């Protein structure tokens, strides 16, 4: 059970207002995407949720508890996989859990297997491809004790083919676990394909411009990407972004 409520959050750095009056909610088991141009303050919002700094005004509530400036309340998958080069894959995925309790290696092995990474438990990050490293980073988030996951453009550094494959993979893993996810991206297709809802941000300063509820049923198939309806949605979102 985890629900994130963001209430009228504003943040400036120096004189520049980065976020203005941002409000939205991510419900239990929901997949919500934050869509906006690069540099629109999406990452800043994540850093605020993650407690790296406090907002100037407004508040974050996770399951009703205020988490302003509180670190470790959410589980986080960064843009670059940020794996520890001296740890094996198995030791890497338990890191998030390890910070709070003794990690469960059996569960970690099982999860790696489901993620299509069996056989790599004892490999080191530099031996894996970019897509695989990103998977490891996501498994690490899933194994962390926090039930709310924030993904910060996790596929932005991957090529188009790997990206597609990763989206499919992410959906299949997520549909099994159903942890609440907040996903940051600047890719419209990715946002529509993956999310229950899309929140479009404007830039300079970022405000919540519009919200879309994506009605496609789950589990979602790849064919969906080429359907007429999907393209209609893409058009609608695209127009909003302009």
């Amino acid at each position: 059970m985890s629900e994130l409520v963001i209430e009228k959050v504003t943040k400036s750095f120096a004189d520049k207002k980065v976020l203005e009056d941002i409000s939205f909610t991510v419900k239990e088991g929901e997949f919500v995407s934050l869509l906006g141009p690069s540099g629109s303050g999406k990452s800043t919002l994540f850093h605020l949720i993650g407690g790296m700094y406090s907002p100037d005004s407004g508040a974050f509530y996770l399951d009703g508890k205020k988490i302003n400036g509180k670190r470790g309340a959410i589980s986080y998958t960064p843009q670059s996989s940020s794996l520890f080069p001296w740890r094996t894959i198995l030791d890497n995925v338990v890191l998030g859990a390890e910070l709070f309790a003794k990690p469960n290696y059996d569960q970690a092995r099982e999860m790696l297997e489901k993620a299509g990474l069996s056989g790599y438990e004892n490999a080191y990050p530099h031996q894996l491809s970019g897509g695989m490293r990103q998977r490891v980073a996501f498994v690490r988030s899933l194994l962390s004790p926090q039930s709310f996951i924030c993904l910060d453009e996790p596929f932005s550094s991957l090529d188009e083919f790997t990206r597609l494959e990763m989206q499919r993979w992410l959906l299949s893993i997520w549909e099994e676990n159903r942890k609440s996810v907040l996903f940051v991206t600047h890719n419209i297709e990715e946002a529509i394909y993956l999310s229950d809802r899309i929140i479009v941000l404007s830039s300079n300063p970022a405000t919540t411009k519009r919200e879309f509820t994506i009605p496609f049923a789950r589990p979602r198939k790849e064919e969906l990407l080429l359907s007429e309806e999907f393209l209609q949605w893409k058009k609608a979102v695209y127009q909003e972004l302009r």
Partner: protein
Amino acid sequence: MVIILLLIIWEACSRLFVIPTWLLPAPSDIVKEGVTSWSVYNHHLFSTTKLSVIGFGIGVSVGLIVATMLHLLPPVRQAFYPLLILSQNIPIIVLAPLLVIWFGFGMLPKILIITLVCFFPITVATLDGFRQTSPELLHYMQMAGASKRQIFAKLQFPHALPSIFSGVKISATYSVMGAVISEWLGANQGIGVYMTLAQSSFRTDRVFVAIGFVMVLCLLFFGLIVMLERLLIKSRNTEGGK
């Protein structure tokens, strides 16, 4: 190979130009002296080895502790860093007699000298290692809710290990030098003593035997450290987890 070639040239020259042994003994003379009078000097050798090992051990520990303290307490770092550098500006040759005056001819002043030459490279290298911790990994750890201690133990320390080892390698060679210098200034045994005795009685061959053993000892130390380094960080790759 180069060393062997040099030795051959040296041997040839000293035979060709009939250089007197007290001026420059041939390598063969040195080796002969080294073998025949083993029983005369072996206690010197062991004494110096012991002294170097103890001094080195203490030097490494002090170096690591100082680096850790300076790292964890930034105000202390600002206050003491210049002092650290100054401590390396005092010529050991001047300091050593002072230490003998203060602490007598026992082990203590000698170990102090070795510690003083050993700890500095380790402290500097370790501090640099701590400071170069990957910002991405640090960011992840903070977002994941790691405590300061966890960040240090799980991220900064392992990340600094290669740097620490470069410091330790430098110190390993310094430690033998430090031991020999400390022995020059008042000891009843050790390679330093043997060297001084040989020098004042124009036994140049013995001086070279002593030099030879200092080198061997240095190499031995160095080799051991390299082996330990391989053992500890064999799996690492500089590429990192990007």
